[in-house]
């Protein structure tokens, strides 16, 4: 609260203020206004002094202004409000500060307003742009998913035609070699389609967790066999199973967690080993996937869990992929209420650790 003894100071503050500033008495009569405010009202200074809002504005605006002043005086508190000026279409951020004399009796209101039209417009545009970007991203995910679904049809034809040819053609070693290549390509393509659909599904949160007792060694062995069939470099996969055979969790989630973590480990390891260790009891499960690969630099360790981000963003020639694997794993792990940890030494390898509860 201010004291009337400081009138001169207040006058100077009003006159020098960069916004629209004024002081009104308790009857709503303008006692002091600055040039900005007079300009805003499109009147000379001396025409504003001594008048009330009802003489300067339309009735509706005047009533609103009076109400705001009353509120400040009645509550005895500073008070900030965003006001829309219907006449000019502008938005103002206004502050009302009540003034009292030494006995505590109200003597008026000091007000200051800033034109924040531009800022409001920018805020609106920003929100709009953000919404548009989110919509576009969602649309992209949906399209990606539809394309992938549609790719299954030609994939099915290739697979079927290959089977047919295998039945009808004499399988010399040369021909067998060709079929092996076709089979491998079908497998790769099918795997790609599955990964994209899977990621789209999880990024659009279109999935439900369905827990049941699942046989973990079975899932892990399937994934390891699948990955082994794709390896074409001196990398071996080891695994140590030190947990209960059955664990109460979601089968789909587990499959994808293993598939992505082991697949990544193999992909980024030129030679050496990928070691999978499973520990735990019926309550907790710890999955450790360790490789002797290229490693992940520190500045990329958070980023790679975001969709479409990769350690090396530009060069896709050496390590194929879209940057969907780890974000998918993270979403699944989070959906199961677990956590994923990463440690890595560039040039020596990476270790991913997943901890989940039943």
């Amino acid at each position, binding site marked *: 609260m201010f004291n009337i003894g400081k009138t001169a100071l207040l006058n100077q503050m009003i006159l020098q203020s960069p916004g629209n500033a004024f002081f009104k008495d308790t009857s709503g009569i303008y006692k002091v206004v600055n040039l900005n405010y007079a300009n805003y009202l499109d009147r000379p200074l001396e025409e504003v002094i001594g008048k009330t809002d009802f003489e300067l504005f339309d009735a509706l605006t005047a009533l609103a202004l009076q109400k705001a002043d009353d509120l400040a005086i009645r509550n005895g508190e500073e008070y900030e409000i965003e006001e829309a000026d219907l006449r000019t279409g502008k938005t103002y951020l206004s502050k009302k500060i009540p003034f009292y004399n030494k006995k505590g009796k109200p003597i008026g209101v000091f007000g200051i307003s800033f034109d924040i039209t531009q800022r409001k417009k920018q805020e609106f545009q920003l929100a709009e742009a953000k919404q548009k970007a989110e919509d576009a991203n969602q649309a992209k995910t949906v399209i990606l998913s539809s394309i992938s*679904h*549609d*790719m*299954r*049809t*030609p*994939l*099915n*034809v290739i*697979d*079927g*035609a290959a*089977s*047919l040819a295998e*039945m*009808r053609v004499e399988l010399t070693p040369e021909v067998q070699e060709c079929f092996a290549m076709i089979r491998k390509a079908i497998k790769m393509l*099918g795997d790609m*389609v599955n990964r994209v*659909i899977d990621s789209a*599904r999880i990024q659009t949160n279109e*999935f439900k967790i369905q827990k049941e007792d699942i046989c973990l060694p079975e899932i892990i062995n399937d994934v390891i066999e699948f990955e082994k069939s794709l390896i074409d470099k001196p990398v071996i996969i080891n695994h140590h199973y030190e947990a209960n055979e059955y664990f109460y969790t979601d089968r*789909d989630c587990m499959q994808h967690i293993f598939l992505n973590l082991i697949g990544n480990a193999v992909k980024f390891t030129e030679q050496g080993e990928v070691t999978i260790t499973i520990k735990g009891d019926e309550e907790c499960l710890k999955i450790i996937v360790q490789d002797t690969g290229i490693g992940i630099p520190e500045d990329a360790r958070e980023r790679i869990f975001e969709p479409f981000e990769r350690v090396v963003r530009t060069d896709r020639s050496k390590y194929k992929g879209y940057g969907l694997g780890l974000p998918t794993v993270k979403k699944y792990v989070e959906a199961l209420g677990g956590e994923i940890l990463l440690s890595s030494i560039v040039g020596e390898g990476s270790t991913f650790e997943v901890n989940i509860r039943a």
Partner: protein
Amino acid sequence: MGKILVVEDESLVSLVLCALLHETGHTAESVGTCADAREKMHNNYDMFILDLGLPDGDGKELAIEFRAAGITKPIVAFSGREEYEMEKPCLAAGMTAYVKKGNNALLLAKVEELLAMHAVA
């Protein structure tokens, strides 16, 4: 050895599938629309293989019609859509099994399994 009707609008898919069925000892015919499938449904087929997205309707709805018309033979859904989203609705519509497109060997195995089961039953 069975007589199978394939309802699939993508001609390459049905061409390959029918050839595979022939090659594995079955008789197969194909149609590309629900309307043609309705006309042929009472021609003593041992099994139906239905795509889900057909130009004049939905394979799932067609299966409901087939069941309502008294057909008790196996109806297999064969689609590019995901099991987790389509398998349950298909089974609820009276279909016997759901096989995802991309692997014909799985479909052929399912055909043998269902024909054997049905022959016993």
